[in-house]
Structure formats: structure tokens, C-alpha cells
């Protein structure tokens, strides 16, 4: 915050003459990008609360009340693969941002589609996993571990799903020619969200699956 206090606030005449004024803000960061950062900061606390809840509750299942978290219960190879798919989608997202910065709309669209596809594979994996767990006897209401597990991973799944809808909307926008020029930053801003969701998954995967 102190940096921005001393940052010069006076309009840049060069930018102004070129008509590039729309990106002039007191901090130099666009409103949309700043808003996304603030939102992600807020979202950290959301997942922080959910992860704390899970950590507190996971080992409190009374004996005989259904499955408990363990390496026998989780299918770690399966989830590792789907986690890898999700992390790989961060790469394609970054490539999409790179493409739009070069003005290569076609390639950007391809990478956005790939990202959406990889995200969908992850969601499909989550659906499969949830189904398998229910068959093994862990429903949402079965015990306290079930409630905490499905809520935490479910919230993450909703975040990914929202991201996929955004990705598809971006693709549609680009098809209609609305993602060029000064709108290109939209892809970058969405990228922040997508990377954030992936980073959160690294935490969740470690805490829920890898730490018994």
C-alpha cells in the first residue's frame, strides 16, 4: 500500500494522447484485475475456513459410524491423475493468456477450449470419485468426515465448474469478435482465477488425500 501512496498520480500525457486512457488508474492496475485480486484474497479465507473445518473434524468420527479418512479409503493413484489433469490445465491457461497477448485469437481459443476440457475431465473424475465413495458407504450424512469431505471438495468443484462456464463464455465472446483489443485483459484476469483454483486444489489434495 505504501508504494501506491508515493506513486505519481498525474496523467501520463503520452498515454492520454494515444487514447489509451482507459487503463489509467491511480495504481496503474485495471479495476477489473484489482477486483479479481481482492476477490481471490477473500476466497482464500473461504477455503481457509473450510480446510480448518475439515482438519478439525476428520478424525472425530465415533467408532462404528462409517468410513474414516485413510490411504485405504482414498484411491490416491486415481486422484493423483485427476489432480495432474487440473494442474496441466494451468499450463494451457497460461498459454491462452500468452496467445491473446500476442493477438493470436485462434490459438487463444484453442487453449481456452483445452483448459475447459481439462477442467471438465477433473470434474468428471470428481463425480466418479464421489459415486465410488457413496458406494463404499460414505454418504454426505453418514458421518462427520463425510460432511466435511464433501463440503470442502464440493466447494472446490463448484469453483472449477464456474470456471468452466466462464471459459466457454470467453470462447463464445472471442468467436463473436469481442475479445480483442482492450478486452484481451479479460483472459488474463480469468487466468488469475483459474490458477488460484488450481493452487487451492494442491492444498486440498495434500491435506485431504496425502496426509492420512
Amino acid at each position, binding site marked *: 500500500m505504501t508504494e501506491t501512496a508515493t506513486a505519481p498520480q*498525474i496523467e501520463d500525457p503520452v498515454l492520454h494522447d494515444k487514447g489509451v486512457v482507459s487503463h489509467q488508474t491511480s495504481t496503474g492496475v485495471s479495476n477489473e484485475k484489482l*477486483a479479481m485480486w*481482492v476477490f481471490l484474497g477473500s476466497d482464500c479465507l*473461504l477455503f481457509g475456513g473450510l480446510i480448518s473445518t475439515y482438519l478439525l473434524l476428520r478424525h472425530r468420527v465415533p467408532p462404528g459410524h462409517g468410513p474414516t479418512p485413510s490411504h485405504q479409503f482414498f484411491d490416491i493413484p486415481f486422484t493423483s491423475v485427476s489432480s495432474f489433469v487440473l494442474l496441466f490445465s494451468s499450463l494451457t491457461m497460461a498459454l491462452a493468456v500468452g496467445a491473446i497477448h500476442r493477438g493470436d485469437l485462434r490459438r487463444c481459443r484453442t487453449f481456452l477450449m483445452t483448459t475447459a476440457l481439462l477442467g471438465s475431465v477433473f470434474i468428471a473424475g470428481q463425480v466418479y470419485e464421489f459415486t465410488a465413495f457413496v458406494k463404499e458407504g460414505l454418504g454426505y450424512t453418514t458421518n462427520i468426515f463425510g460432511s466435511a469431505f464433501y*463440503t470442502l471438495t464440493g466447494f472446490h468443484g463448484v469453483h472449477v465448474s*464456474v470456471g468452466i462456464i466462464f471459459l466457454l463464455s470467453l470462447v463464445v465472446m472471442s468467436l463473436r469478435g469481442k475479445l480483442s483489443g482492450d478486452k484481451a485483459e479479460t483472459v488474463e484476469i480469468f487466468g488469475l482465477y483459474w490458477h488460484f483454483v488450481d493452487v487451492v486444489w494442491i492444498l486440498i489434495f495434500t491435506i485431504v488425500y496425502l496426509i492420512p
Partner: protein
Amino acid sequence: MAIVERPTAPLELTTGEPAVSRPLGGFTRPQATTGWKSWLTTVDHKRIGVMYGAAALFFFFLGGVEAVLIRLQLAAPGQKLYSADLYNQLFTMHGVTMIFLVVIPLGAAFMNYLMPLQIGARDVAFPRLNAFSFWCFLGGGLMLNTSWFLGGGADGGWFAYAPNTGVTFSPSHGMDFYALGLQLTGIASLVGAINLVVTVLNLRAPGMTLMKMPVFTWMGFVTQLLLVFALPVISVALFLLTFDRLFDANFFNVSEGADPLLWEHLFWIFGHPEVYILILPAFGVVSEIIPVFSRKPIFGYPFMVFSGIAIGFMGWGVWAHHMFASGMGPLSVAAFSLSTMFIAVPTGVKILNWLATMWGGKLTFSTPMLFAVGLVTMFTIGGLSGVTHAVAPSDTQQTDTYYIVAHFHYVIFGGALLGFLGGLYFWWPKVFGYTLSDKLGKWHFWTILIGFNLTFGPMHILGLQGMPRRMHTYVEGYGFDFWNLVSTIGVFVITVSMLIFAANILKSWRGHRVDPVDPGPDPWDARSLEWMVQSPVPAHNFDEVPTVSHLDEFWHRKYQENDQGKLVRVATGAEVAQAGDPTGVHLPSPSYWPLVMAIGLPVIGYGLIFNLGLAALGGLIVVIAGFGWGYEPADDPEAHHGPHDHDGHDDGHDGAEAELDEASGNGDETPAAEAEPAGVASGSPTASASDEKASSDD
């Protein structure tokens, strides 16, 4: 569904006729700027601020009625005016209403109205999001209160400790309404907070560095940051409660191994920053009032700012002092005792700075100043009883007694509310163009001061005598009778006082209608930028965005040093103020979508409680609204455009316009991301920047 066609390029209108724009084949873009319909679609931060204030006063009335009912029951020992169950609902709904639906939105009213003006901006960063947060708040508040007609209000206390809030102990729908209604007001506050944080960081006038911002804006900024980080925590807690109640999850089910302290921790990690969310805007208000009526700059401006920031940080490390009686262990108790004592330091710095501002000043005790001094004194009493809570052994005695009730009413009522009432008197001429009667204002102040102390002062004694709170009655002979009666008399004095306030508004308004007296742009000889525009503030705020070179910029334009180095008046406020000429300013266009989306959310809420089909309908409304919003240009390309003459207005203030255009631009991700899988991230695909810059009325 979303991809209904609309012209991809802005229509080239050369005739100046208003074109009909149907972005989704849905709504015609609203055009009205007057009449009640224009209030539904407005994106003007000032109108939204006024609506926040009006809604807060409406809920204040509801919460006040609940307070009177509570005090009636407690006026004498052994009364049975209502059942214990109804009493539980009354005090729960009183607390929830006053905190979430009165004090927070009153703060939001001031922050929405004033922060853009004080930093020299034309609007907030995301005007439509701003409208959405108001409607979402209103929907949540109304939904919460409809619970009275749908099986009874919430009955678990505003803090809603588990497992009392489970279906077993609270079988009515009251707690469902609590969880979902507060979730909505939480979304509203979060969206509003992100908006204002970005506004303060990004839309400052040229030269307005962070350390030249008025103290009110600073306190508002810290408040919004607290909201950004505190709200998700209560969101999690409310989600867990909702899932427990509606979907049979086990988060607070003790027989399944749950730990009820989880709720307490989540709630108070939100709840203690929340205390500062309530009080900091009021601190900001009196920090504006006191210098003006002392005719001195605020004493120790950097200390005011940094103590506010310090409160913002330390506010995160004191939550467990609400839980000293929960048996969490001596180490935690000691740590939180210490941190609670420490947080008194920055608060004390503020109080001393206000005193030092008044010290040696030319004091004028107009109504706003009286209320400001009222805050300083009453909050100090509440602050001191707060310090006694930091002493854990003593606090353990006081937990759940009326001593606590006395304490938090002294800080919230005697602090926040008195400050906001002073702010209403102070900024009323700026907002509405007429001044409230000073004589009635003084009556209002003295009666509320007496009534407030009569009501809550005795509660200190009752608490120390051991009277437990949240009990619907008490037995004769414990020494509680007299002070309870005094307290009930006090609440009627407060009622009279608020009626005087209502009469003042009505009388001053009528007087203004019959015989308008223009208060001028600067009725108090004030210091910050909002006084540099006409009263009431024109829709576009500033004709030309001022370049700022001082703290208290407006004051420094009126007073300058003469040859002897003495400050003398060089101009009147009216001379310095801008004329209010909207030429060359293009404002963000009104929109239906924020309202539509905000209507969808309570529908989801009711649906979750009563019928999942209804929830699906609500979800559909939200999704449609999300796409409609996303595909609607933030600035209507067809609005009020005559012949395109973009270059005609490229004089000094274009940068600010550009900021505004940017502001109203495309980044509406947040509601969609936060609320629902709703829509296209980034909206406003059309409307090229140059097109948006055309004049609004040529």
C-alpha cells in the same frame, strides 16, 4: 441461451433520437432519471447510498420495536407478556437486525455516498455491482424479517451458538432464515467491499495520494478490507449451519463427534473484526465533524490513519475473548487477554487525537458536533468496560450477564449509532439540499443521550449483581427490580427522541418546500472535497476532477497564508465550489440486471427452505441475470448520444472520464463467481471506449 443476438457494433446514431436497445431481447435499457422507477435501476453511488440509509432507518424501526417489546417484558419481575420462546425470537431478531441491517448498512450508506466524493471520483469502480449489493442486502434483510410470518423468527441469539441452532433445539424455520438471510447480506457486503476497495485504490483524483485522503475515507477503506476478509469466514459458518439444518450434515451434531467450539471460533473470527466494521466508519464520521466544528485540522492525521490500520490488523487477533468461558485452556486465554488489552491502545490514540483536535479550537456546538462529542464520551465508557473484559478472571464472572449487554450497547449505540446520527445532521444539507433544524436536533441529541444512559447505564449494575442476559424474566427479590424499571423508562425516552428526529426531518423538509433556503455548497465551512460541489450533489459529482495538492484540499483553496505567514481566508466556499455543469460528462447507464439478480437470490433462499423447485427457479433467474448483465454494455452506447464529436471535450478532465468509463467497464466477474455459475465474466463486449466518451447531453 445467452447468445441472443444484438448488434455487434455500436449503433451509429446520427439523429440523436433515443434508440431502443434490447441487449438480450429482454429489457429495454432503462432511460429514466427521475421518478420511482429510476431508483430501481440507478447505478449512481449517491442514490444507492441514500437507499442504504433509508433501508437502514426502516430496519432501525423494526429493531427498535423489538427492543421496546423486550424492555416491556423486563419492566417488572415475573411478567409473562410473551412466552420464553417468543422472547428468544425477539432478542435474537433485535440483535441480528440492529447489527446486520442497521449499523452495517448505515455505515455502507455513508461510505457509498462519501468515499467517491472525498477522493474526487465520479462514481465507484463498478456501478452496477454497487446497485446489486444494495438490492441483495435489501432482499436478505426482508427475507430475514419475513420469517416472522413463516413460522417464527430466529431464536438462537445473534451469535447462534451450536448446537442450540440445530433442528433438535430450534425446530422452526427461524434459524434457516437467519443462515440464508445473513448469507445474502454477506454477499451484498462482500461485493460492495470489493467495489469500494478498488474504488479507493484506483479512482483517486490526480494528486490524491493515500496520505491525502480524508480520515473518513481511510476508515472506510480499512472497514472494507475487514469485510473482504471477515465475510468469507462467516459465510463458511453459515454454509455449515445451513447444510446441517437442511441437508442433515453433521458439522454441529455432537453425537457424531462434532465440536461445538468450531462454530464459536468461526463466528467470532468474523465477529470481532465485525465489531470494528461497525465502529470504524463512525470513527471516520466524527473525525470529519470534529475538525470542522473546532476550526482546526485533525490532530495527528498520520496517527489517526495508522491507528485505524492497527485496529484493522489487531482486530483479527482478539476474537477468543468472546470465549473465555468456553474452557479453551489457560494459554489461549492469556494470549487473547493480552491482545485485547493491546487493541485498546490504538483506540485510545484516536480518542486522544479527537480531544487534542478540540483543544484550543474555536468550538461550535451545533448538532453534528454534539453527536460527535457524544460518541467520544459514550464510546470511551464502552471502551473502558471493554478493557475490563480483557481481564479474563473478571470476564468469566461477567460472561452472559447484563454487564456484557451494557458494554456492547455503549460501543455500538453510544459509539457507532451516535456517530452516524451526527453524520446524518452533518451531511444532510449536502445530500438533500436543506439543513435539518438545529433546535430540534439539539432536542434529539439531549433526549437520546439521557435515554441511552438511562437504558444501558443500569445494565452495568444489573450485570455486576449477576442478572443473566437472554432470560425472558426474573424473580422478585434479587435486587433487579428497580434498575430494570429504569432501563425500561429509558427505552421510552429513546423512542421519544427518535420521534423528535422523524419530526425534524419532516418539519425541515416541509419548511424547505414552502420556503427553500439554499444551504450552499459549504454550509459548515468544511474541509474535504465533497463540499466543493453543489448541494445536493449533481449526478456527475465533479464538473472537473480537481487536482489535489493538500490534505483538506477544499479548505486550502479557501484559506491561504498571507505575507506574515498567517492563514487568511482568500475565498468563500461558494466561490471555490464547482458550478454543477454536466457538460462533457458521460455517466454509466442504469440497468435492470442488478435488481433482477438480487431478486433471484432470495428466491433461491426460500426455495431451499420450502421447495427445491423454487430454488431452481431462483437459480435460473440468477443465471439469466448473470448472462444479461454480462452481455449488456456497462455504458449504453445509444444513451443520450447526439452526433459523435469525441474530440470536442478532450480537455483537462478526460482522464477522469476515462476512469469512469473504465470503472463502469467490464469486470463484473465477482457476483457471478461469488453467487452462482452465472455468467460471462467480463460483460460489456460492445461500446468502444471512444464511443462511451461522448457527451451525455449534447
